[in-house]
């Protein structure tokens, strides 16, 4: 694992932002979980509980016009681009207040106006999309960076290869971030790759540097994010980052995650990114009361959002036939 880049100091303000970001992610997703339990979520949902440090570290480096693309496990990434919690939870519950008015569902959290360019439900689909968006930024001279988050299992699908290659040859401002949480759905990634690190050990195939970061350490992620985002912004091309992390829950709502050895789960729970970071902040002298208060705030924000969802109406039946086309409608004939 590359040592955290310590050529620059992380400021106190950044540290608080990172912690706050993680707390908000955690609160959001716990609330999503509660909403299933209440029977408010009818489809599926994929939580990033345990992977918050990756989302926090990268989000902290972005400009408002940068573009983030994520998977179905994308709530955290989308939240930290500035989305409010209610439209995220509302979409998980497919309510009218959802960011996609309930038409997308939990796997498609999106708010384009905030650079939350979407959550994609088909493995690998968004990698070339993120590349194309970055290219458009170059053509238009905007200086935008495109962030693309995906899992370890995604490194075995064809679009991964095509997208990283295209970004590399066109030197596009894309940061590909593989969140290696050791599993696809039920199958461990180690069973289906011939190398140790699914993303990092493939970087050289695209002329890229091998970058591995502790994905449960928000500081380490942040430093890697600064380096790779700046590199992209300078026009020096894409990076492929592998962040080692773990999901606390099963793959999706339907999965209790029983295929994982108890000791493995326990070891990673000890390395919970929030615990790790709280410990660091305390040892750096941040007062526990402030940290507690931040946590309270995050929870209150999530609870308020959940209340909004509970009160939100179902989507208007008229929404069924809107927004297939740019004219707002769905007519295919005259």
């Amino acid at each position, binding site marked *: 694992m590359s040592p955290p880049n310590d050529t620059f100091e992380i400021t106190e303000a950044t540290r608080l932002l990172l912690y706050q970001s993680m707390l908000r992610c955690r609160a959001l997703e716990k609330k999503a979980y509660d909403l299933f339990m209440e029977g408010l979520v009818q*489809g599926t949902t994929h939580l990033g509980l345990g992977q918050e440090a990756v989302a926090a570290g990268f989000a902290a480096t972005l400009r408002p016009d940068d573009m983030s693309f994520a998977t179905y496990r994308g709530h955290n990434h989308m939240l930290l681009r500035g989305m409010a919690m209610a439209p995220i939870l509302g979409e998980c519950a497919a*309510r009218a207040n959802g960011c996609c008015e309930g038409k997308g569902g939990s796997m498609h959290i999106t708010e384009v106006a905030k650079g939350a360019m979407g959550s994609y439900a088909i493995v690998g689909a968004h990698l070339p999309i993120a590349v194309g968006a970055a290219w458009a930024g170059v053509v238009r001279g905007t200086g935008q960076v495109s962030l693309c988050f995906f899992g370890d299992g*995604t490194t075995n699908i064809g679009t991964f290869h095509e997208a990283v290659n295209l970004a590399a040859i066109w030197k596009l401002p894309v940061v590909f971030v593989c969140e290696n949480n050791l599993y696809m759905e039920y199958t461990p990634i180690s069973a289906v790759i011939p190398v140790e690190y699914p993303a990092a050990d493939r970087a050289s195939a695209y002329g890229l540097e091998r970058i591995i970061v502790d994905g449960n350490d928000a500081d380490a992620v942040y430093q890697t994010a600064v380096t790779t985002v700046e590199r992209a912004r300078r026009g020096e091309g894409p990076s492929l980052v592998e962040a080692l992390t773990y999901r606390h829950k099963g793959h999706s709502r339907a999965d209790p995650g029983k295929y994982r050895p108890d000791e493995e789960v326990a070891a990673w729970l000890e390395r919970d990114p929030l615990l790790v970071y709280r410990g660091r902040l305390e040892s750096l002298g941040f007062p526990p009361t402030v940290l507690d208060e931040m946590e309270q705030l995050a929870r209150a924000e999530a609870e308020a959002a959940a209340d909004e969802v509970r009160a939100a109406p179902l989507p208007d039946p008229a929404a069924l036939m809107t927004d297939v086309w740019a004219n707002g409608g769905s007519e295919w004939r005259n």
Partner: protein
Amino acid sequence: MAELTYRNAIARGIGQEMERDERVVFIGEDIGAAGGVFKTTVGLFERFGPDRVRDTPISEQAIIGGIMGAAMNGLRPIGELMFSDFVGVAWDGIANQIAKTRYMTAGQVALPLVIRTANGGGTHFGGQHSQSVENWHMMIPGLKVVAPATPRDVVGLMAAAVRDDDPVIFLDHKKLYALKEDVPDGEIVDVLGKAVIRHPGSDVTIVALAAMVHVALEAAGRLAEHGVSAEVIDLRTLVPLDTATFLESVSRTGRLFTVEENPRLCGWGAEIASIAAEECLWDLDGPIVRITTPHIPLPAAANLEDLAIPSAERVVQTVLSQA
């Protein structure tokens, strides 16, 4: 005779064939130790071991190309794509390679393989995990297409699919997984290309497939209360297509309705309607009416999805409005 769910019928059907013929192998994502993400393949890994039941990476093109190659070299593979929407990722392999290679090699290449996938909506998974894609395959010459409506048919049609020497797309319907019925013990083997009349009737013919068969049956029950005798035909397979059964039915009833889960344009319903409009026009006592999902992607919200997919109520109202 014991009660069997549609879900368990899948493993039973595959198991029956793997037991019989050691050339039958099965690959896909999470189908092995995990027993499938819908628990449709539970027990197969334990029974047949990792050589014959094998988890793959998330590489649908490799799964589809892989079973094609395996079929070319003496196996009779079954490949699973977790959701039928994912055929898009492997569409070249399905539509251009598997479907066409026998023809393009003048019969040299035999491809006795099955692509099995969880099809259909009604489970609120959103637009990319809910599609009915049987039409995508029906459109491609060289593919056979199976979509069972009942647990018994899952077993019998799976056997027929595996034993067929041509590539077969086997679309089990997610919404039906919990459906139960009493199914005979022992081997069940059907033939491809035989529709069944699930409910006889004399006033109108309703042609349906997979989950829509149950919608049509419920509608037929309610139509009876309105004095309309509806015949419900379950196509069971789209290719080969049992045209005789529905043409004969229409010649008796004079009215044809199709109930189709797919988006509206160019579906199997259009094919059925066109065949009837060419071959039994003079038997018709009224327009041919297709009842379909509108031509839209499927929404995630339960209330919207329920509006989109044809319901018994919609079928009843449509038929009555035409009476």
